[in-house]
């Protein structure tokens, strides 16, 4: 059985923080297995991406057919299946972007392996891959042993340290994969939401709003605060369900998992499913008018007050302090 690790990256993402985390995890796991780490890049990558990946991997396979430039589920699946199949690894690692989430189970099934998602740690025990992840909506932590090979795992990428350069430069091979002519599913349109500034998962400072915000307009006040803090804006599931913010702003079990230096939770009760999404934050603080709110049990500091009374003076004060 192979002891190699394959990491799957999408060219369109570049070698972003998530890719760096996947690479880092891949290197570590390969070391534990005593094998090599191969990178597979789906889609035609930029030069800078290829070199960055080549600096951390043992080999790089580029699948740069033009059909693969934009993500298409069936095409990406077919190409990864072929590429990974050829490499016959013990583990295939991916990030937690939506494309990877979509492909993992099917890729695993086609490779005869075991899928897993949202891994926060990887280990090897008696030749089997073990994945640590949150469970029961954040109330517990589980370690899964993946019984089939290869293990195909989506990682909570930004929680892993970026890969160290190997010191060398991996060989880069362009591989042509067989792509089906007709596909049953096609992405026909991509709507990208305007996000000013840094995307949520990469932001070092994040402001989150919850059910207590009470409406779509009050979120503008939060955006103002975020601007002064140079922070990104996210929300709990309740606020998204109400339609006050788009789903892409959702932080939690079924939203983004963020790892900022500081997360400011405003009018968020602190249910476990939301806290799951911020468990990698270095520090958490909260504004809530309920002293018994759960969020305070996860916060390093907080203020018990109606957020409406706090946010305007807070904006002013922060402006003064940071100017």
């Amino acid at each position, binding site marked *: 059985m192979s002891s190699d690790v394959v990491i799957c990256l999408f060219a369109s993402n570049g070698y972003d923080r998530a890719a760096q985390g996947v690479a880092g995890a891949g290197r570590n796991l390969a070391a534990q297995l005593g094998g090599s780490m191969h990178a597979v890049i789906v889609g035609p990558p930029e030069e800078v991406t290829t070199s960055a990946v080549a600096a951390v991997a043992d080999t790089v396979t580029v699948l740069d057919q033009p059909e693969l430039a934009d993500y298409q*589920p069936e095409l990406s699946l077919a190409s990864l299946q072929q590429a990974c199949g050829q490499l016959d690894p013990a583990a295939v690692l991916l990030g937690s972007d*939506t494309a990877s*989430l*979509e*492909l*993992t*189970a*099917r890729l*695993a*099934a086609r490779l005869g392996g075991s*899928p*897993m*998602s*949202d891994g926060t740690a990887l280990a090897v025990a008696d030749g089997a891959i*073990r994945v640590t*992840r*949150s*469970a*029961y909506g954040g*109330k*517990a*932590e*589980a*370690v*899964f*042993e*993946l019984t*089939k090979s290869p293990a195909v795992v989506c990682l909570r990428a930004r929680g892993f340290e970026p890969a160290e350069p190997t010191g060398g430069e991996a060989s880069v091979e362009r591989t042509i994969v067989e792509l089906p002519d007709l596909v*049953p*599913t*096609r*992405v*026909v349109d*991509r*709507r990208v939401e305007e996000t000013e500034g840094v*995307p949520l*998962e990469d932001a070092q*400072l994040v402001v989150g709003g919850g059910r207590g915000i009470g409406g779509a307009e009050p979120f503008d006040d939060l955006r103002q605060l975020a601007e002064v803090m*140079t922070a990104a804006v996210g929300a709990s599931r309740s606020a*998204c*369900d109400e*339609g006050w913010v788009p*789903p*892409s702003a959702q932080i939690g*079990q079924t939203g983004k998992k963020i790892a900022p230096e*500081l997360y400011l939770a405003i009018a968020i009760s602190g249910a*476990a499913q939301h806290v799951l999404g911020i468990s990698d934050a270095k*520090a958490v603080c909260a504004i809530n008018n309920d002293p018994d709110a759960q969020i*305070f*049990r996860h916060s390093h*500091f*907080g*203020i*018990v*007050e109606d957020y409406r009374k*706090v946010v305007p*003076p*807070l904006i002013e004060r922060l402006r003064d*302090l*940071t100017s």
Partner: protein
Amino acid sequence: MRILVCMKQILDPDLPARDFRVDASRNEAERAGANLVPNIFCENALETALQLRDATGGSVTALSFGTEEAEDVLRKALAMTVDEAALVIRSDGPAPDALTVAKVLATAARKLGDFDVVMVGRESGDWGVGQTGGLLAEELGLPMVALVDGAEPADGGLKLRRQTDYGFDAVEAQAPVLVTITNCEGNVPRIPKTRDVMKAHRKPLTTWSFDELGVAADEKVAEVVELSVPEKHVTCEFVEGDSLDEKVDAFARKIADVMSGLG
């Protein structure tokens, strides 16, 4: 259009953290007195399916694999007006893993006939692994689209909207196809009418036992080897101050400290 919705009954995700206990011998949560509820994403899927049926005609079948108590989920689905419901019962044994579930659901689905669309929730509120949908698609030989929050009929299939990290994609899918559903404003599960609740108890429910389906016992993809409740180590410091201004000032300073440390 024949739609199949697979639904899971889970331990109440709103169980207070202090009541949550791990059964170390089985590596799963202790049932104790906790309630069992339908997984919310399964209900989102059900609502999406019902809206699709209401728009195009056709039928919705609800299918579940669980203990006898899972019947409650299906009775509620019947009260929400699904046309048909079926349950595969397994009373004991460890919690089935994603592959076992996928095989069971696939076997049952084939017994129930051909479907144009299979809808499942993106993940369950208990383990949250979210792989069953994809494995089921492979078992049934269907293409799959994940994280869908809107479905409309289109020529020969569906026009889907799905959530992405950056916004939304519009996806065209030909039937038959499997779709995993995530939550949005538009698929909040409908409230059943009381009369339908009363009728639901009298509607027919197809049941099979796990053994009857002949699925190879516990063909697994994963096994839980450890389950623990992480210790919490955070104590919140509530800012002090005689007035609101003082408190806000203290709070702001702490934030500014973090910001200046980032450079």
